[in-house]
């Protein structure tokens, strides 16, 4: 691995050459910057991986069953496992998706599950991302580059190859494709923060990168408009656009990014959309609390991977605990994402704590509270020396005929020594994730 670290400059040159960038909006301006890459990989032992893999497959299967249940019979609500209002008050729940059965009954084709490793070595799930989890292309291209610049590193270390991610995506697209139509990745365009990923995955998966104007819905089917108005049926859309912007006729009518009447084609089963619309209900921060219960309810098994200890102020006994111990907890606004709306009680002034308590009293459903996990620091290169920084791991689970876990992941780290927030949209960097073959 030392050989790889020595090649840091060469790796960065290749990153620049391939335009590996991440877009950030700051003060209303869009800036593209190179996504900082740290050459020291996160290493996951084979033994750890076996547990992670089994736990994630179990978790994602349960989440897919939950989505099918919520937009169908709602047994989990009827049996009192999850309170009804947790479903209907969630911004991720879409009434427009009621009764829709997606192609092959798969809702979350690509699930990005965020994990951290506690200091006792235990892996803990922090968050489920079932809408448009991004980031897989970065470790994929990083591996392509690091294998070029330091082949000896991979001769000496038995690491699972991670360059098959695009093939896994393509396989999932082909599996749900309706009527063997065209496979497209629908992008909002180059000013999206993850545009690099959209275009890179389209290239590597061998599918079409489409913009809203390239697609049209006619007779409840989706068509790609080629030159001279030639139309070809689209069978599957891997959309990189949020639900609310996907169809202006059903959701936000001002959206210029979506395809009018797409929902109609989807409802009729004439096109597969991955991930399915309405998945936001399953990755709601409040619903997260119930995932281990879902595993038991749908699969009759104990959850292999545990959540961080979480409290729902919705329940009076949890609220009492949260209000009494707020200084030692991390409080999250369930409506926020991307590292925003996360407050550490210990960092807030007395006045701010009182305000927060009042907000929790007024809208208990809006908040969750978690014990702060003292997760492990990873070594990061800073100049010629190394420093320790907080990091997390996003692992990608692909659901098609089988549910598989991509043997790699995006390790994000904070560059701020005092921060626990590793989100790339807040300026963090990334590492490759090595899953060991033995």
């Amino acid at each position, binding site marked *: 691995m030392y050989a790889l670290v020595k090649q840091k400059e060469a790796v960065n040159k290749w990153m620049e050459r391939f*335009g590996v960038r991440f877009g950030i909006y700051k003060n209303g301006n869009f800036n593209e910057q190179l996504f900082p890459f740290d050459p020291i990989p996160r290493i996951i032992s084979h033994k750890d991986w076996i547990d992670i893999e089994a736990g994630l497959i179990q978790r994602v299967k349960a989440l897919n069953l939950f989505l099918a249940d919520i937009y169908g019979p709602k047994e989990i609500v009827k049996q009192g496992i999850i309170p009804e209002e947790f479903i209907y008050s969630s911004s991720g729940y879409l009434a427009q998706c009621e009764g829709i059965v997606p192609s092959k009954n798969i809702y979350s084709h690509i699930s990005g599950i965020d994990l951290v490793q506690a200091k006792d070595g235990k892996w803990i799930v922090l968050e489920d991302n079932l809408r448009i989890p991004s980031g897989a292309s970065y470790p994929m291209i990083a591996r392509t580059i690091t294998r070029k610049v330091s082949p000896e590193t991979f001769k000496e270390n038995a690491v699972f190859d991670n360059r098959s991610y695009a093939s896994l995506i393509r396989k999932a697209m082909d599996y749900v494709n309706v009527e063997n139509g065209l496979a497209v990745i629908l992008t909002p365009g180059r000013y999206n923060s993850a545009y690099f990923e959209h275009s*890179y995955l389209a290239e590597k998966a061998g599918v079409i990168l489409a*913009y809203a104007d390239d697609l049209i819905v006619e007779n409840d089917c989706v068509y790609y408009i*080629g030159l001279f108005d030639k139309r070809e049926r689209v069978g599957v859309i891997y959309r990189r656009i949020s639900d609310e912007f996907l169809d202006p006729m059903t959701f936000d009518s001002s959206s210029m990014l979506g395809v009018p009447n797409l929902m109609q084609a989807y409802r009729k089963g004439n096109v597969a959309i991955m991930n399915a619309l309405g998945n936001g209900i399953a990755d709601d921060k409040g619903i997260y609390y119930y995932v281990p219960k879902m595993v038991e309810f749908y699969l009759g098994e104990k959850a292999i991977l545990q959540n961080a200890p979480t409290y729902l102020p919705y329940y009076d006994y949890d609220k009492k605990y949260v209000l009494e111990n707020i200084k030692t907890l991390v409080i999250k606004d369930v409506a926020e994402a991307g590292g925003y709306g996360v407050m550490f009680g210990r960092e807030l002034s007395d006045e701010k704590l009182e305000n927060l308590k009042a907000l929790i009293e007024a809208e208990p459903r809006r908040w969750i509270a978690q014990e702060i996990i003292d997760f492990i620091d990873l070594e990061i290169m800073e100049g010629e020396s190394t420093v320790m920084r907080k990091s997390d791991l996003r692992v990608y689970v692909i659901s098609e005929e089988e549910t598989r876990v991509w043997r790699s992941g995006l390790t994000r780290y904070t560059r701020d020594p005092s921060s626990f927030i590793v989100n790339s949209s807040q300026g963090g960097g990334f590492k490759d994730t090595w899953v060991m073959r033995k």
Partner: protein
Amino acid sequence: METIATKVITPSISTAKANRLFWMGRYAQRVYQALHQLRKHFDMSIDVNDNAYKEFCFKMGIENKYASSEDFFQKYLFDETNPDSVINMLDRTKSNAMVLREEIMSETLSYIEMSISHINYCKLNCNNLNDLQPITDNMLAFWGSLDERILNKQTRHIIKFGKHLENMDLHIRFEYPFSRVEGIYKLMLETIEKECYICNKEILYALEQKLTPDKYKEPATLAVLNSLFSI
């Protein structure tokens, strides 16, 4: 408006993509040719004609808003606020190319990325036109990579249509001999005839009438040439 043909369309190319492919080809060729002509005119400015840059501006059809030869070389190369500058040409090439990654492949796009990195480096660190040679090398590698990697004929021909059209335009502007211009025209014609279908048939006919040794340098020839692309 009539197009030459409308058959054998690869469905993966939308109108917007075809437009970008064409303009990517034009801008990439403009970068290459502009640097080539700059070298020639810079050479003249050393000891033959200190005002060679004025001739360059005139032939290129751009406004001479420069105070001196030095001012010209600095601003024409590196000034992002100057719409005529080489750095801007590269940016426009990239703007078109980066949304075509799945068509042209990352390896091809990388030559544009490297050219942009290099011109940004030179802006701060170089004072000799010779230091920009890697950009010329990258542009040649870009064309080679396109030839090597793009198997979709329609995609190739649309890009090459843009490249040859730009090349022909600049060869006429810089008064190359007719035989050279005619040679480029024949190359361009090949792209149009081979599954490209994005030019106006009547304008092509009008262009053919203009391509004679005595008429090809007329401004009207350039006007016809530049209205040939049609989708």
